[in-house]
């Protein structure tokens, strides 16, 4: 893969570049802020981009904004946003417009090269990636009369993997079950929670995340 990396922290940037190079991928460009990254992406059209969410000048959500702009201008480029925040609202904001080909990963996870390469490959393949810690947090949220309690253990497990952005095929491989079994779990769980399943679309990730997040919120 041809990959561009943007992070204002040189240590992290160099680390990622090193890991990717060792793994045999070509890092076509590096940037320390969003503007430089945007011009770099326009010129080099990489397969995937790794962006730190917090960059100059305000160190708030520049990475998120840049990711959305890249995604809007070049939908074929996969975008992976890195963050130190376990913030489901950021992840949801990233994927709510175009869930295909974007991912939100915690920074501490990217140095596990297998996870990094997997995530990049998935966003480049137009899948959605949501960090498991965020999904776990959403699942762990306390609720009054929790509807998740009514799910079977396998059903909840499948729902979590769907929320991480896994395809039915990937879930089947992970859980060592057939794809058809996965499909039936998904259909059943979605029915139980009142969600509409659309296996062909990555919108189901958003549906699950939004459901987990906003369950109980009537407005706002």
């Amino acid at each position, binding site marked *: 893969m041809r990959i561009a990396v943007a992070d204002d*922290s040189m*240590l*992290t940037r160099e*680390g990622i570049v*090193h890991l990717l190079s060792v793994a045999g991928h070509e890092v076509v460009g590096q940037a320390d802020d969003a503007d430089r990254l945007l011009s770099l992406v326009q010129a080099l059209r990489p397969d995937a981009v790794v962006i730190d969410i*917090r960059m100059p000048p305000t*160190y*708030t*959500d520049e990475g998120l904004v840049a990711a959305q702009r890249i995604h809007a201008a070049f939908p074929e480029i996969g975008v992976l946003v890195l963050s*130190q*925040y*376990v*913030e*489901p*609202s*950021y992840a949801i*904001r990233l994927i709510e417009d175009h869930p295909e080909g974007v991912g939100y990963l915690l*920074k*501490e996870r990217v*140095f*596990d*090269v297998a996870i990094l390469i997997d995530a990049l490959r998935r966003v480049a393949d137009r899948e959605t990636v949501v960090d498991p810690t965020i999904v776990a*947090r*959403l699942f*762990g*949220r*306390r*609720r*009054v009369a*929790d509807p998740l309690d009514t799910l079977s253990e396998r059903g909840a497990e499948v729902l979590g993997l769907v929320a991480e952005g896994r395809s039915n095929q990937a879930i089947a491989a992970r859980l060592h079950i057939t794809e058809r079994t996965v499909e039936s779990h998904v259909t059943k769980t979605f029915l139980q929670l009142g969600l509409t399943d659309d296996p062909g679309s990555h919108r189901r990730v958003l549906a699950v995340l939004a459901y987990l*997040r906003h369950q*109980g*919120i*009537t*407005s*706002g």
Partner: protein
Amino acid sequence: MTRGAFSRVLLVATGVFVMVVAVVAARQPSAVLTTYAAGSAAANIAFFIAGLALIAAGALAAGDRASGPLWSLCVLGGIAWLAPAWVGWDTGPALPRSVGMVLAPFLVPVLVHLLLAAPGRRLSGPLRRTAVAGVYGITAAASIGLALTRNPFLDPNCWSNCADNVFRLVSDPGLARLIEAIRLSASVGIGILAVLVATWQLLTSTPVARAVGWMVTAPAALAITAEVCYAAVLRGDPAESPERNPFVWIFFARSAALTALAVGVTWYVVQRRRRRTAFLTLVNELEMSPGIGSLQALLSRSLGDNSLTVAYWLSRAGRYVDALGHAVNPEVDQDRAMTAIVRSGTQVAVVSHERAILDDQTLRQRIGPAALLAIDNERLGVELTAHLQELRLSRMRIVTAADEARRQIERDLHDGAQQRLLSVLYELRLASSESQEDAHLSGALDALIEGTQKSLVELRELAQGIFPAILDEAGLGAAMGTLADQAGCAIEIRSVPHVRLPAPVERTAYLVVSETVGAAHAGSGGLTVNMDLCDETLTVCVDGADKAPSEYLADRVGAAGGVLSVNSGAIRAEIPCG
């Protein structure tokens, strides 16, 4: 008409009657000189002016119930003063002439009584009553004694009335002369004593009493002095004559002193009435004391200048503010004038107005005492408000500074320690991937990786606890979501405003919820959060709280200018956004 009012009217009418008879008597042609008034035109004028003035002053004082016996003494004094005109009524009937002879000597006791009863009197009640009664008694005894014994016809010194006296029982010129001599001596003694008492009164009374009473006491003392002189001269030279000095001079002195006394009493009564009116007006204005901020409206309405402003000077803060405590800058140019309002030598306020409306002097005069009171009232209110405002702002600044410091610590942790731990993690992973052959080393490195990851998680939670970065970056909605994700109890967020609010408001609202969540038991029934924005006020309601909010939370809400209240498990904070 009450009895008191009736007796007042009756006495004043008597005085007027005496006056009229005196005028009639004086107009009768006479072959010989029987009164001082007939001596010259000046004497005539002086005589009647003094009489008229006394009766008029008495009538005026009779209308003022609080001025004591002053009114009756004035009228009685006028009657006694005018009595010699009756006596000298050459062609008149004998009765009025004899009555006049009885009445005339009472001028001295009436004047003494007036002096002792004058405002600022010092003699105690019983002593004063005894003295007054004694003086009246002596005079009455002498006057009646004379009336019973004197036969003017046989009196070699007779001049005003040489006809007989209708009250005479016996004709004893020797006894009559003795009684008259005793009366005159007594008048001199009593008069001197009375003047001494008057001097003592004026010297020893308080400044206020002196200021009130001197205008009556001083002319009364003068009139008594004149009477003393008259009696003393008459005692030495019984052959009285209205054409001869020192009698003429003494007559003028007596008339002048009595006129002065009448003027003094009038002045006293008028002053008293004016003070009373001024006091009543003040009381009225106090009752209708205008509320804060209405002074400017009142002034601009009464002066017809819509642009008029009242600005108060806060000496501590060194700036002008309006009645509501907002900073203002009173302007001066060729069209606008500024009038300073000074209290106890200090400028307390300025009135800025159209120059053409009026000059400063007029304005100062028109701002009456009550308005000055309103100014003081407003100014004190304004000072208090400004002080409170300053306190509120400084409280807010302290809170904001503390928030900023926490925010900075969170950033430093994120950009410093967390980044460093990340790079350690990276190095460890590199080392781990290069040491796959050495199982022991690889295991140790994996343990290190796990430990570092735990540290990262803990550090991240610590940073988030110090300051929720998501709140500043994404607002209350996202921050509430995160809070609900992590909370130990179920939180239902029913409503959150969609708009971003000022940072201090968002932080305070967040704290209301996070503190309540922190205090809630893990197994509690769950909290419901409602945040509604209405009329520039954010209302945060948290239902289902186990514990009352901490004092710190109440202070935090208070620092933001809001109010925190608790009602059976429902915590409610109202935070102004303006």
